[in-house]
């Protein structure tokens, strides 16, 4: 018999009793898990990234281009843009894409598992459409159609420009929603039929069973794949500069292009993109770590080890 929860252990933080007492405790316990318990791994990964970055710059210095960092400083002020500005804009875009993509993906994924043919059909069309197009084509598609629609409408150019650019963000949100819909669908379908049988046999209605029996389990099963999709959609935002966004990718492109003013064009570009890569790494790292924390939060004792 595997170990049950003995009364003595119920008061330690993270024990089933404390963790599941109510959702507030759960959230608090979860935040603790993500940001405190995992400190060691932040230190290890972050430390490795910093050391790696320093070594790389030293390598460049050895090549005789160490002065590039000073040059970059001058470049940043010359262009009045800085990667960190682009970084903040990227964060803003990610802050829109992830919640919208997750919410919509969840709904579409659910729609595809219902017995209502119309809902299933609409869901399939949505997924097939947004999943089969490269994100860059979707961005152009949305932005250009918006542009054409707005032409001659008398709307002021600034508003029109803003609208067009945000339609590109919408395109990315729909793209990731399609992927997340499939992840949710897989999660829902992988909850064994016996679970809904049991809920049925107890007189729990289908809708309620969905919320209290199926979705909690489907969500837990979907988390690893969701983390994967989050990290991928964060990096897709680097495509948005094709319609004028000066997010991290756009800023980096501009800086790299302008480093031709200086003597070491290739090395200059390289440093710019190392900066960009590092900043993307930071966002992606925080996002995937958070998902891992949520995974821990939803871990079910006795189920974490695959049974033979």
């Amino acid at each position, binding site marked *: *018999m*595997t*170990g*049950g*929860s003995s009364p003595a252990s*119920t008061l330690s933080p993270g024990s*089933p*009793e404390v963790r*599941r007492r109510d959702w507030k405790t759960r959230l608090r316990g979860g935040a603790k898990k993500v940001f405190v318990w995992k400190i060691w791994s932040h230190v290890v990964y972050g430390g490795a990234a910093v050391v790696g970055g320093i070594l790389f710059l030293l390598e460049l210095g050895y090549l005789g281009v160490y002065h590039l960092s000073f040059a970059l400083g001058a470049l940043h002020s010359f262009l009045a843009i800085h990667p960190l500005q682009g970084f903040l804009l990227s964060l803003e875009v990610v802050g829109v894409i992830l919640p919208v993509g997750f919410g919509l993906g969840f709904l579409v994924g659910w729609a595809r598992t219902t017995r209502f043919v119309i809902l299933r059909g609409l869901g399939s069309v949505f997924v097939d459409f947004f999943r089969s197009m490269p994100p860059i084509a979707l961005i152009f598609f949305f932005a250009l159609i918006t542009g054409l629609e707005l032409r001659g409408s008398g709307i002021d150019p600034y508003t029109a420009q803003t609208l067009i650019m945000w339609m590109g963000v919408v395109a990315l949100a729909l793209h990731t929603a399609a992927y997340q819909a499939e992840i949710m669908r897989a999660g829902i379908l992988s909850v*064994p039929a*016996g*679970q809904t*049988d*049991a*809920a*049925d*046999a*107890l*007189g*729990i*209605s289908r809708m*309620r069973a969905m919320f*209290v*029996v199926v979705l*909690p*389990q489907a969500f*837990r099963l979907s988390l690893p794949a969701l983390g994967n999709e989050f990290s991928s959609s964060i990096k897709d935002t680097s495509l948005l500069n094709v319609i004028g966004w000066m997010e991290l990718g756009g800023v980096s492109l501009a800086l790299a292009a302008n480093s031709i003013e200086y003597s070491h064009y290739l090395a200059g570009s390289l440093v710019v993109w190392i900066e960009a890569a590092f900043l993307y790494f930071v966002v992606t790292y925080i996002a995937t770590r958070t998902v891992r924390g949520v995974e821990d939060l*939803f871990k*079910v*004792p*006795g*189920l974490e080890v695959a*049974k033979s």
Partner: protein
Amino acid sequence: MSSIRVKGVRKSFGELEVLRGVDLEVNSGEVLCIVGPSGSGKSTLLRCMNLLVIPDEGQIFLDDVALTDPRIRPEWVRQNIGMVFQSFNLFTHLTVKRNVMLALRHVKRMNRAKAEKVAVSQLTRVGLADKLNAYPAQLSGGQQQRVAIARALAMDPKAILFDEPTSALDPESIHEVLAVMSRIGQEGMTMAVVTHEMGFAKEVADRVVFFDAGRVVEEGTPDEIFERAGHERTQAFMKKILR
């Protein structure tokens, strides 16, 4: 307690006719064992009784309420007829206590304190008072099945259906589950049990039904079915099973 009556029930899945006109009665307070070869439709019959499977033809009564009447809500039927599955089907993401509480909270609309009280008392009844906060995956098969029984009992059903409750268990666990079941039977619960446990059928059942190819072949007291079966199909089956 209540009785369940099955009258002329037929059910086909596509081309395959699984139930070919079944008449059966589970009297109030009676333990009825349904035995027969696998694939004979026993489980489907059981699942018809709480409308997990809707019969194509025929009627099913709980006391004098026709469950097959389209106006009857399936949820109402299932609230009143409990079911225990072969593979336990405990909710894996909930603790033992919450497994029992779930339907009390969401179907019977009990408040948390009351549901918890009922859950604890039912789990104590099946001998699992020390496992309240364990998760199903931390329990043995026998313990999981006892939780499933407690979960059914907690709804205070008029009858309980058992669908091969011990088929997925090791011999030791079989014993502990059957012990709980006989105690519930002796306490007067109406029970329909699909089982391959002939020992249990002999000792606990009030009546035994031999079921084959979608029909009731023979029914009677355990003694009549096991020792003096009249039908040659029953005799052949018993000969293979009892040795």
